[in-house]
Protein backbone atom coordinates (compact mmCIF):
# COMPACT_ATOMS: atom_id res chain seq x y z
CA UNK A 1 0.00 0.00 0.00
CA UNK A 2 2.03 2.92 -1.28
CA UNK A 3 0.36 6.18 -0.34
CA UNK A 4 0.89 9.63 -1.82
CA UNK A 5 2.27 11.90 0.89
CA UNK A 6 3.04 15.62 0.83
CA UNK A 7 5.11 17.23 3.55
CA UNK A 8 5.43 21.01 3.37
CA UNK A 9 8.71 22.34 4.67
CA UNK A 10 10.23 18.92 4.23
CA UNK A 11 13.75 19.99 3.39
CA UNK A 12 15.00 20.16 6.96
CA UNK A 13 14.14 19.46 10.57
CA UNK A 14 10.84 17.88 11.54
CA UNK A 15 9.45 17.86 8.01
CA UNK A 16 12.46 16.00 6.66
CA UNK A 17 12.21 13.44 9.48
CA UNK A 18 8.54 12.88 8.57
CA UNK A 19 9.35 12.51 4.87
CA UNK A 20 12.07 9.96 5.64
CA UNK A 21 9.70 7.84 7.72
CA UNK A 22 7.07 7.76 4.98
CA UNK A 23 9.72 6.99 2.36
CA UNK A 24 10.97 4.09 4.52
CA UNK A 25 7.42 2.69 4.53
CA UNK A 26 7.44 2.68 0.74
CA UNK A 27 5.13 5.67 0.30
CA UNK A 28 5.47 8.08 -2.61
CA UNK A 29 6.66 11.21 -0.83
CA UNK A 30 6.82 14.76 -2.12
CA UNK A 31 8.30 17.54 -0.05
CA UNK A 32 8.05 21.24 -0.65
CA UNK A 33 10.80 23.60 0.30
CA UNK A 34 11.31 27.30 0.08
CA UNK A 35 15.04 27.89 -0.34
CA UNK A 36 16.97 24.71 0.53
CA UNK A 37 16.19 21.62 -1.58
CA UNK A 38 15.76 18.28 0.24
CA UNK A 39 18.50 15.64 0.25
CA UNK A 40 18.64 13.12 -2.61
CA UNK A 41 15.98 10.45 -2.83
CA UNK A 42 13.02 12.69 -2.02
CA UNK A 43 10.86 14.36 -4.65
CA UNK A 44 11.31 18.05 -3.92
CA UNK A 45 9.04 20.77 -5.23
CA UNK A 46 9.94 24.40 -4.74
CA UNK A 47 6.97 26.19 -3.30
CA UNK A 48 6.60 29.24 -1.11
CA UNK A 49 3.55 28.39 0.98
CA UNK A 50 2.72 32.06 1.37
CA UNK A 51 1.81 32.19 -2.33
CA UNK A 52 -1.44 30.46 -3.36
CA UNK A 53 -0.40 30.22 -7.02
CA UNK A 54 2.82 28.41 -6.09
CA UNK A 55 0.84 26.05 -3.84
CA UNK A 56 -1.50 25.22 -6.70
CA UNK A 57 1.38 24.68 -9.12
CA UNK A 58 3.15 22.40 -6.63
CA UNK A 59 0.03 20.28 -6.22
CA UNK A 60 -0.32 19.98 -9.99
CA UNK A 61 3.28 18.83 -10.27
CA UNK A 62 2.78 16.24 -7.52
CA UNK A 63 -0.53 15.02 -8.97
CA UNK A 64 1.12 14.49 -12.35
CA UNK A 65 3.96 12.51 -10.88
CA UNK A 66 2.23 10.51 -8.14
CA UNK A 67 -1.53 11.18 -8.26
CA UNK A 68 -3.68 13.02 -5.71
CA UNK A 69 -2.28 13.61 -2.24
CA UNK A 70 -3.71 11.20 0.34
CA UNK A 71 -1.71 12.30 3.36
CA UNK A 72 -0.88 15.95 3.95
CA UNK A 73 1.56 17.10 6.60
CA UNK A 74 1.39 20.87 6.82
CA UNK A 75 4.66 21.55 8.57
CA UNK A 76 6.37 24.59 7.02
CA UNK A 77 6.72 27.30 9.59
CA UNK A 78 8.75 30.29 10.72
CA UNK A 79 9.43 32.35 13.83
CA UNK A 80 10.07 36.05 14.22
CA UNK A 81 10.49 36.30 17.98
CA UNK A 82 10.41 39.60 19.80
CA UNK A 83 8.49 41.19 22.66
CA UNK A 84 5.13 42.67 21.80
CA UNK A 85 6.30 46.26 22.20
CA UNK A 86 8.99 45.72 19.61
CA UNK A 87 6.87 43.54 17.34
CA UNK A 88 5.81 45.27 14.15
CA UNK A 89 2.53 44.49 12.46
CA UNK A 90 4.61 43.15 9.57
CA UNK A 91 6.34 40.67 11.95
CA UNK A 92 2.97 39.52 13.21
CA UNK A 93 1.37 39.22 9.79
CA UNK A 94 4.34 37.41 8.25
CA UNK A 95 4.29 34.69 10.89
CA UNK A 96 0.52 34.24 10.73
CA UNK A 97 0.75 34.10 6.94
CA UNK A 98 3.49 31.43 6.87
CA UNK A 99 2.13 29.31 9.74
CA UNK A 100 -1.66 29.63 9.68
CA UNK A 101 -2.85 31.05 6.36
CA UNK A 102 -0.41 28.76 4.57
CA UNK A 103 -2.05 25.78 6.28
CA UNK A 104 -5.38 27.05 4.94
CA UNK A 105 -3.90 27.23 1.42
CA UNK A 106 -2.42 23.74 1.35
CA UNK A 107 -5.29 22.05 3.17
CA UNK A 108 -7.88 23.65 0.92
CA UNK A 109 -6.02 22.49 -2.17
CA UNK A 110 -5.45 18.99 -0.80
CA UNK A 111 -9.11 18.45 0.09
CA UNK A 112 -10.05 18.67 -3.59
CA UNK A 113 -8.55 15.25 -4.17
CA UNK A 114 -9.42 13.85 -0.74
CA UNK A 115 -13.11 14.66 -1.11
CA UNK A 116 -13.16 12.88 -4.43
CA UNK A 117 -11.38 9.88 -2.94
CA UNK A 118 -13.64 9.95 0.12
CA UNK A 119 -10.63 9.56 2.39
CA UNK A 120 -7.57 11.43 3.56
CA UNK A 121 -5.32 12.32 6.45
CA UNK A 122 -4.41 15.87 7.33
CA UNK A 123 -1.81 16.59 10.00
CA UNK A 124 -0.98 20.13 11.06
CA UNK A 125 2.25 20.98 12.86
CA UNK A 126 1.45 23.28 15.75
CA UNK A 127 3.53 23.78 18.90
CA UNK A 128 3.23 23.43 22.66
CA UNK A 129 3.58 27.20 22.66
CA UNK A 130 0.20 27.59 20.94
CA UNK A 131 -1.65 26.61 24.10
CA UNK A 132 0.98 27.40 26.74
CA UNK A 133 1.96 30.84 25.48
CA UNK A 134 5.52 32.07 25.33
CA UNK A 135 6.95 35.50 26.10
CA UNK A 136 8.47 36.92 22.93
CA UNK A 137 6.46 34.65 20.65
CA UNK A 138 3.01 36.26 20.59
CA UNK A 139 2.84 36.08 16.80
CA UNK A 140 4.07 32.49 16.65
CA UNK A 141 1.84 31.29 19.51
CA UNK A 142 -1.21 32.98 17.99
CA UNK A 143 -0.56 31.28 14.65
CA UNK A 144 -0.05 27.89 16.29
CA UNK A 145 -3.18 28.22 18.45
CA UNK A 146 -5.11 29.20 15.33
CA UNK A 147 -4.28 25.84 13.80
CA UNK A 148 -6.25 24.12 16.55
CA UNK A 149 -9.54 25.88 15.79
CA UNK A 150 -8.89 25.44 12.10
CA UNK A 151 -8.26 21.70 12.44
CA UNK A 152 -11.23 21.10 14.70
CA UNK A 153 -13.61 22.90 12.36
CA UNK A 154 -12.34 20.82 9.46
CA UNK A 155 -12.61 17.63 11.48
CA UNK A 156 -16.34 18.42 11.66
CA UNK A 157 -16.68 19.53 8.02
CA UNK A 158 -14.82 16.61 6.50
CA UNK A 159 -15.46 13.77 8.92
CA UNK A 160 -18.36 12.37 6.93
CA UNK A 161 -15.91 11.83 4.05
CA UNK A 162 -13.48 9.79 6.15
CA UNK A 163 -10.95 12.60 6.20
CA UNK A 164 -9.24 13.04 9.56
CA UNK A 165 -7.64 16.29 10.67
CA UNK A 166 -5.27 16.31 13.61
CA UNK A 167 -2.73 18.60 15.21
CA UNK A 168 0.69 17.70 16.57
CA UNK A 169 2.07 20.01 19.24
CA UNK A 170 5.81 19.47 19.75
CA UNK A 171 7.86 20.88 22.57
CA UNK A 172 11.44 21.96 21.88
CA UNK A 173 12.98 19.88 19.08
CA UNK A 174 16.59 19.77 17.92
CA UNK A 175 16.38 21.58 14.57
CA UNK A 176 17.71 24.73 12.92
CA UNK A 177 14.75 26.62 14.37
CA UNK A 178 15.85 25.98 17.95
CA UNK A 179 19.59 26.12 17.15
CA UNK A 180 18.95 29.78 16.40
CA UNK A 181 17.95 30.36 20.02
CA UNK A 182 21.42 29.98 21.54
CA UNK A 183 22.82 27.82 24.38
CA UNK A 184 21.44 29.77 27.34
CA UNK A 185 17.89 29.97 26.09
CA UNK A 186 17.93 26.26 25.22
CA UNK A 187 19.16 25.32 28.71
CA UNK A 188 16.40 27.40 30.21
CA UNK A 189 13.84 25.76 27.92
CA UNK A 190 14.87 22.18 28.66
CA UNK A 191 15.02 22.89 32.39
CA UNK A 192 11.24 23.31 32.26
CA UNK A 193 10.66 20.04 30.42
CA UNK A 194 9.87 17.08 32.73
CA UNK A 195 11.87 14.77 30.47
CA UNK A 196 14.71 17.30 30.80
CA UNK A 197 15.84 17.22 27.18
CA UNK A 198 14.81 18.29 23.71
CA UNK A 199 13.04 15.97 21.29
CA UNK A 200 14.67 14.61 18.19
CA UNK A 201 12.87 15.41 14.95
CA UNK A 202 12.30 11.69 14.50
CA UNK A 203 10.32 11.51 17.75
CA UNK A 204 7.87 14.01 16.30
CA UNK A 205 7.80 12.15 12.99
CA UNK A 206 6.82 8.94 14.77
CA UNK A 207 3.59 10.50 15.98
CA UNK A 208 2.91 11.93 12.53
CA UNK A 209 3.40 8.46 11.07
CA UNK A 210 0.89 7.08 13.57
CA UNK A 211 -1.72 9.74 12.72
CA UNK A 212 -1.34 8.95 9.03
CA UNK A 213 -1.53 5.20 9.58
CA UNK A 214 -4.32 2.62 9.88
CA UNK A 215 -4.24 2.57 13.70
CA UNK A 216 -5.36 6.21 13.84
CA UNK A 217 -8.46 5.75 11.70
CA UNK A 218 -10.75 6.88 14.53
CA UNK A 219 -8.62 9.83 15.69
CA UNK A 220 -9.72 13.24 14.45
CA UNK A 221 -9.78 16.77 15.83
CA UNK A 222 -7.13 15.75 18.34
CA UNK A 223 -4.21 17.83 19.53
CA UNK A 224 -1.39 15.42 20.34
CA UNK A 225 1.33 16.83 22.56
CA UNK A 226 4.84 15.49 21.90
CA UNK A 227 6.54 17.79 24.34
CA UNK A 228 8.30 15.80 27.04
CA UNK A 229 5.54 16.87 29.42
CA UNK A 230 6.12 20.60 29.03
CA UNK A 231 2.54 21.50 28.26
CA UNK A 232 0.74 19.15 30.67
CA UNK A 233 -2.76 20.34 31.29
CA UNK A 234 -2.88 22.55 28.24
Amino acid sequence: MSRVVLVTGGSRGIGLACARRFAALGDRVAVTYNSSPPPDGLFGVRCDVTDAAQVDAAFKEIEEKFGPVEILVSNAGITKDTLLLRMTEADFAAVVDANLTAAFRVVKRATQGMLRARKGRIILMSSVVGLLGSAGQANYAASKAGLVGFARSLARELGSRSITVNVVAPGPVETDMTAALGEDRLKELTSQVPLARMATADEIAGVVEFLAGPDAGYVTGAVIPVDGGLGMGH
Partner: protein
Amino acid sequence: MSQELFDRFIKCAVDALKVEPDQLTREARFKEDLDSDSLDFVELMMAVEDEFGIDPIDEKELEGITTFGQAFDLIITKL
Protein backbone atom coordinates in the same frame (compact mmCIF):
# COMPACT_ATOMS: atom_id res chain seq x y z
CA MET B 1 -34.75 24.27 -21.39
CA SER B 2 -31.92 22.99 -23.48
CA GLN B 3 -31.55 19.24 -23.15
CA GLU B 4 -27.86 19.46 -23.93
CA LEU B 5 -27.23 21.80 -20.97
CA PHE B 6 -29.36 19.67 -18.69
CA ASP B 7 -27.39 16.58 -19.69
CA ARG B 8 -24.13 18.31 -18.85
CA PHE B 9 -25.59 19.28 -15.49
CA ILE B 10 -26.57 15.66 -14.89
CA LYS B 11 -23.06 14.53 -15.70
CA CYS B 12 -21.66 16.87 -13.01
CA ALA B 13 -24.19 15.63 -10.49
CA VAL B 14 -23.54 11.95 -11.13
CA ASP B 15 -19.88 12.64 -10.42
CA ALA B 16 -20.24 14.94 -7.44
CA LEU B 17 -23.23 13.37 -5.70
CA LYS B 18 -22.47 9.74 -6.55
CA VAL B 19 -26.02 9.10 -7.79
CA GLU B 20 -27.48 7.37 -10.86
CA PRO B 21 -28.57 9.53 -13.82
CA ASP B 22 -32.17 8.28 -13.63
CA GLN B 23 -32.49 9.69 -10.09
CA LEU B 24 -31.82 13.17 -11.44
CA THR B 25 -35.25 14.47 -12.34
CA ARG B 26 -36.17 18.14 -12.06
CA GLU B 27 -38.30 17.32 -9.01
CA ALA B 28 -35.60 15.36 -7.14
CA ARG B 29 -34.93 16.94 -3.74
CA PHE B 30 -31.25 17.10 -2.78
CA LYS B 31 -31.65 16.09 0.82
CA GLU B 32 -34.58 13.69 0.81
CA ASP B 33 -34.29 12.03 -2.60
CA LEU B 34 -30.61 12.32 -3.44
CA ASP B 35 -29.33 11.88 0.10
CA SER B 36 -26.87 14.74 -0.31
CA ASP B 37 -25.64 17.06 2.43
CA SER B 38 -24.33 20.61 2.29
CA LEU B 39 -20.82 19.46 1.39
CA ASP B 40 -22.14 17.41 -1.55
CA PHE B 41 -24.00 20.49 -2.71
CA VAL B 42 -20.87 22.65 -2.56
CA GLU B 43 -18.98 20.00 -4.51
CA LEU B 44 -21.71 19.95 -7.14
CA MET B 45 -21.64 23.72 -7.49
CA MET B 46 -17.85 23.71 -7.90
CA ALA B 47 -18.08 21.01 -10.56
CA VAL B 48 -20.76 22.98 -12.36
CA GLU B 49 -18.75 26.20 -12.22
CA ASP B 50 -15.85 24.33 -13.87
CA GLU B 51 -18.01 22.55 -16.44
CA PHE B 52 -19.80 25.71 -17.61
CA GLY B 53 -16.93 28.12 -16.99
CA ILE B 54 -18.99 30.42 -14.80
CA ASP B 55 -17.90 32.55 -11.84
CA PRO B 56 -18.35 31.17 -8.33
CA ILE B 57 -21.99 31.47 -7.33
CA ASP B 58 -22.73 33.56 -4.26
CA GLU B 59 -23.90 31.45 -1.30
CA LYS B 60 -26.86 33.77 -0.81
CA GLU B 61 -28.26 32.84 -4.20
CA LEU B 62 -28.22 29.18 -3.24
CA GLU B 63 -30.48 29.70 -0.26
CA GLY B 64 -33.89 28.16 -0.73
CA ILE B 65 -32.80 25.82 -3.48
CA THR B 66 -34.06 22.36 -2.62
CA THR B 67 -34.58 20.56 -5.93
CA PHE B 68 -32.35 19.58 -8.80
CA GLY B 69 -34.50 21.59 -11.22
CA GLN B 70 -34.23 24.76 -9.15
CA ALA B 71 -30.45 24.44 -9.11
CA PHE B 72 -30.40 24.00 -12.88
CA ASP B 73 -32.58 27.09 -13.39
CA LEU B 74 -30.12 29.15 -11.35
CA ILE B 75 -27.14 27.87 -13.33
CA ILE B 76 -28.88 28.79 -16.59
CA THR B 77 -29.12 32.42 -15.50
CA LYS B 78 -25.32 32.50 -15.10
CA LEU B 79 -24.41 31.36 -18.62
